[in-house]
């Protein structure tokens, strides 16, 4: 069997690689963002679940757990994928999450700021997003099937392919 690798990085750390047919799942994406990257040739992919846009709010925590923040988690996540054999030009990128409370002043708009932080990093690095499922007031669960590159979102009792 060909070795397929899935990585899952989230607020609680990094989990080890998986094999073909495994489904990587991240639950409870509220304002958080779930970033899926997948190299369909090397079959290397994973999900990054980050919570906040900017690590400067707590550099100490970012040092312990860089996956919590967009600015520290995203570059590291791509680096990890490259180490596992992914190639940058082949990576397919999908994004889900960034839900918001009803907040006309956008004081608490972490979902929106999380999404903006990601787009800024991608724009600087020339990375294109293939599909997004962003915003709204409902939380999401995000799935990635290693091997088939099947990605889908579960929200409000419905499953939506991504």
């Amino acid at each position, binding site marked *: 069997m060909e070795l397929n690798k*899935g990585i*899952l990085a*989230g*607020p*609680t750390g990094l*989990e080890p690689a*998986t094999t073909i047919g*495994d*489904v*990587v*799942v*991240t*639950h*409870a*994406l*509220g*304002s*958080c963002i779930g970033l899926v990257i997948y190299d369909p040739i090397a079959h290397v992919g994973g*999900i990054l*679940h980050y*919570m*906040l*846009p*900017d690590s400067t*709010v*707590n550099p100490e*925590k970012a040092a312990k757990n860089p996956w*919590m923040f967009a600015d520290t988690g995203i570059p590291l996540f791509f680096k990890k994928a490259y180490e596992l054999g992914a190639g940058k030009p082949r990576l397919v990128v999908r994004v889900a999450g960034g*839900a*918001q*409370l*009803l*907040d006309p*002043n956008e*004081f*608490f*708009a*972490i*979902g929106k*700021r999380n999404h903006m932080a990601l787009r800024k990093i991608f724009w600087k690095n020339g990375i294109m997003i293939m599909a997004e499922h962003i915003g709204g*007031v*409902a*939380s999401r669960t995000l799935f990635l099937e290693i091997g088939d590159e099947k990605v889908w979102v579960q929200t*409000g009792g419905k499953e939506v392919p991504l």
Partner: protein
Amino acid sequence: MITIESLSRDIDQLAPIPVSLPKLARTLANPNANLHDIVGIIEYDVALTANVLRMANSAAFAPRNSILTVRDAVVWLGAGRVLQLAVGDHAKGILGQPCSGYDLTERELWHHSVAAALGADLLRRFTTEHIPPVAFTAALLHDIGKLIVSRRISDDLRRQINRLVEREQLPFFEAERAVLGINHAEIGGVIAKRWSFPKILVDCIALHHNPDGEGIVSPALDAVHIGNVVAKTLAIGMGSEQMNMVACANAARRLKLTPEKFEALCANVMVDFPKVEELFDGAKHGLQHSYR
């Protein structure tokens, strides 16, 4: 429609709260209360005494020497912390139940309550306003009204609420009020009042969705509101309400929060959540993501 008069029986069916807890809350709300009064209330309740001693000697508070008396435990933990722990220990049994009327499975409402309480408590690190210890307790109990609504609500009423949320774009608690005549926050306030908790705690629960609305401005109420916003932002215990609540920026401004401080507060809650859960449950919260 649910009327306040019709709630008595439902409230009685919730696990009755030991009289010592509201008594302790009332004593702590009194600025003239002294250590002797507080120790007296705890010692009168054998179960509470055992609990306070257990908590004081737990790894979370790690005393250098074993704590053997209630007086030493109160001095070591602080009276406010004793109330928080005692109410939390009692509430976990009630709030840990499934709340199917809100699509909350077993322990989801408890997790949400702990996250909100932690949010209200950790706010102290980010504000110069005085947040009284009762804010933690009120945030822990803020959604207790959902347990009553969950028992009373029919599928048809749930559909009506969801229709108002989807079609009229009403916040969930307003749709609830439009359909039921009362919302879960107001029912929570009725429960707290019936349990003889002090007025500040009753108000914090009853108005947790509306800290601007009733002319009652208090840092405790603002803290409970922000605590709930934190728990929702982190998607801890969402249920059918999801993130469909109005987040009040005025409450944050009164507490001198900034959007950056709010983000830092969320990070702190996420990091401390497993420790608090372990303190109450003896087990840590599972990962928010997994392989299958």
